[in-house]
């Protein structure tokens, strides 16, 4: 299989590779994600019961509570954070976690945005490399 490459807009810099966890639904972190395990516990999510730990987490945009940063920072502390965030649209709430963890825990969590077509391709992806600086996501499986 030839490598598929998707263009993306780098938001928070960094380069990581890992398994993709794809959700078609907007995600709420506070209440929706267990901060001890990284498991999605929002019954409205299409990835209910799945863990985001060490995954490339793909979802269209955030919803609900503004506590996403608290949960992401805690996931970083306990080693259950996703490796990267890929969104249609990002926002201040979602970026808080990656920006604070870089300053406080010296950990990188790249964030990129893709378009609808990119999302569709990612919905089929197994593994990927996210390169925020180059503006590319490469599907590796």
């Amino acid at each position: 299989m030839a490598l598929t490459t998707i263009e993306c807009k780098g938001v928070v810099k960094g380069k990581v590779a890992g398994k993709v966890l794809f959700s078609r639904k907007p995600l709420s972190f506070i209440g929706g994600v267990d901060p001890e395990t990284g498991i999605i516990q929002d019954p409205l999510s299409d990835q209910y019961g799945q863990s985001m730990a060490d995954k490339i987490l793909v979802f269209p945009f955030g919803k609900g509570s503004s506590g996403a940063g608290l949960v992401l920072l805690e996931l970083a502390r306990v080693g259950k954070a996703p490796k990267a965030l890929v969104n249609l649209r990002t926002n201040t709430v979602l970026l808080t976690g990656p920006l604070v963890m870089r300053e406080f825990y010296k950990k990188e969590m790249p964030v990129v945005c893709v378009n609808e077509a990119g999302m569709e391709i990612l919905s089929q992806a197994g593994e990927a490399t996210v390169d925020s600086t180059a503006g590319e996501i490469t599907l590796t499986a």
Partner: protein
Amino acid sequence: MYLTDYDKSLLNGDFGEAARIGMSILTDLGETMGAEKMISISMVHDDSAWYSGLAALEFAEHLVDLGGKFCVPTSLNSCLMDLEKWQEQRFDPELYIIHKRIEKAHTSLGASASWTCAPYFAGFVPRFGEQVAWAESNATNYVNSIIGARTERYAGLLDLCAGLTGRVPYQGLHCPENRRAEVLIKLEGFKEDDFLDDAIYDMLGYVHGEIVGDRIGAMEGLPLHSKIDGLKRFSATSASSGGVGLFHLIGLTPEAQTLEMAFHGKKPKDVVIVTPERLRESEERMSNSSPKEINMVTVGCPHLSHAECESLLTAFAGRTVHSSMEFWAFTNRCNKQHMEKNGMYEALRRCGVKIYTDGCPMSSPFDRWNFTGIMSNSGKFSTYCFSYSGIKPVYGSLEDCVETAVAGTMQRSAKSWH
């Protein structure tokens, strides 16, 4: 991004390491969001005290150790428990000890121990058009939409950075041009009487959030006499069903005095009609639970205003909560004090209502109470409670909540829009 001399000296550490950390995170945010400059904000609402693991506390304590101090007035959002009555609520003493650490860290930074998600009902409130940095989704949505102040949807942690520096990137909802409505939502087929039951404001908020997602919507057709408490619940619920940080209600909110104002004279990108039928569908999604029995009723998400407490007392009309039930009402400390002074606290207590401050119904230690069925009058609570507690709550109007509590079995009145 353009930085003033003051910004540069913050970044340079001239105002201490804590302020430098805050500024560094905020300028990173500004760069990533393409902001042209930083601006000053005049107050902060701090939602970083919500316990969801030790990371946020360690960050706050680190800032304290570095000598960090908020340079603008800062209010604190709710925490998990009533800091005075946590034992009655059956919270774990260890969690209480962590909360005292949290309180110490945040008040050392300079926050007021207001502990409420409705700071706008406790004296912490900006004016129309004021640039502020508020976190907590209902508070942010309220202050932007109903008051018309200007804040991005700050997340817990960023609020601390804003407090330490008094600066934020000029982007998102801080900029007037980004506050324009994109989606017009028109109410059709509703009767005037439908708005007599305050529950409709939760439903409409829920639909609003579902429709707009993370865009900015303007709803047309709400009656001009809608009260602030209804709009508050619209705000909270729409911020839970969607990524809503600002909404407009034509004729009711200050940036939407006319349709033209809400859309900045442009055409809506999208028009959606909401009928009673559409509302019923959403109500189904919001509250699709039929527990065998209800043994817990909770109101006050977001924290009750004085007026809502008056409505609560009126609804009880001297009756009392059934012995098989718990009835928990959440409000702010300021209103609790008012109610202690004018006898309402005692009157509600005699009805069997437990009044709590500081905490949040969602974070109640449900497992220690064996609650099997919960009713609340909050669309936000309905949306989040299941993932928190494993219990699907039933939505009921304030009156339904009281009737259920008095009867000891579920009572849900048919709504006029049903």
